[in-house]
């Protein structure tokens, strides 16, 4: 009880004194505590079965898309490529995970060619429909296959968010296509403990 009172007083003093714990003004949406830690079992673009622990120690940017997506997915992956260039050496402490919402067409080999056309810091991930659905549901990501187009193709509507996890796999921030690259770069640098 005494301890609680003391803590409260300390908190009041901190607030009054304007010296509260350092609060970074995130430019992206702070999702800490609102989304679960990164967890999945999928197949990477080299054909290896991986789980989220394979990426512990790196800041992870998680994005859902598919290779037969010529406009929006390349735009986002190009933004992430520019982000990696701006991060310089810090890029090696981050990993972009591009999770296919179209496992019927996205083989590891196709994903490998696709993600490497954008940036070497991107890993493509695919899996069974159940494995992908489990990860998408975990982050409330929606996707659905559209009708078959002339020529036999189809598109897959999907959520456009970029989920950012710290190096311990904790969900921290959510970015969208509308966020400028500078905002993502700022927050990634802060998360990595570097000067923004």
């Amino acid at each position, binding site marked *: 009880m005494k301890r609680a009172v003391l803590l409260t007083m300390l908190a009041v003093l901190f607030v009054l004194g304007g010296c509260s714990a350092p609060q970074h003004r995130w430019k992206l949406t702070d999702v800490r505590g609102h989304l679960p830690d990164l967890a999945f079992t999928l197949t990477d673009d080299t054909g290896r079965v991986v789980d989220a622990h394979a990426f512990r120690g790196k800041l992870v940017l998680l994005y859902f898309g598919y*290779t*037969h997506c*010529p*406009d*929006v997915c*390349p*735009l986002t*992956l*190009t933004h992430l*490529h*520019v982000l990696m260039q701006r991060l310089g050496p810090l890029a090696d402490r981050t990993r972009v995970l591009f999770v296919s919402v179209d496992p019927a067409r996205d083989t590891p080999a*196709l994903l490998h*060619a*696709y993600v490497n*056309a*954008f*940036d070497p810091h991107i890993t493509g991930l695919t899996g069974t429909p159940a494995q992908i659905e489990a990860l998408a549901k975990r982050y409330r990501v*929606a996707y659905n296959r*559209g009708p078959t*187009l*002339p*020529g036999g*193709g189809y*598109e897959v*509507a*999907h*959520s*456009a*968010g970029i989920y950012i996890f710290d190096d311990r796999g904790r969900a921290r921030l959510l970015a*969208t*296509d509308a966020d400028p690259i500078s905002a993502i770069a700022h927050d990634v640098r802060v998360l990595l403990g570097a000067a923004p």
Partner: protein
Amino acid sequence: MLALAAALLASPAFAAAITVQKPWVRWLPAGLPAAGYATLVNGSDTPVSLVGARSPDYGSVMIHRSLDRGGMERMVMVNAIPVPPHSRAALAPGGYHLMLMQPRHAIRPGMRVSVRFEFSDGSTIDVAMPVRPANASG
């Protein structure tokens, strides 16, 4: 002078209302569908629409539009892209684009692909579209 003569010879019987500027294609590997972009400029007093496109380099070309609806990214086929008089319309990443499918031969960055733009006034314009790398910003 030679260039001018060539331009005159290449021009259609009537002056096209539209010009196609800054064309490019975003290359993707493995023969995946690729997106084509350009700015359509209407210098005339009448509205003109892009109503179709075809290419000897691709088996199929469609006009698509990416839409962001409530955080969901989706693509829709469109029949026409209107270009108002003395105005322009952009085919640009995240919006209108040409969906270039079933390449007839291997296409690589640095090449040019030929696309015929077809307009509502009956005019067509053949455009040599430079192919840029997948991660090109424009």
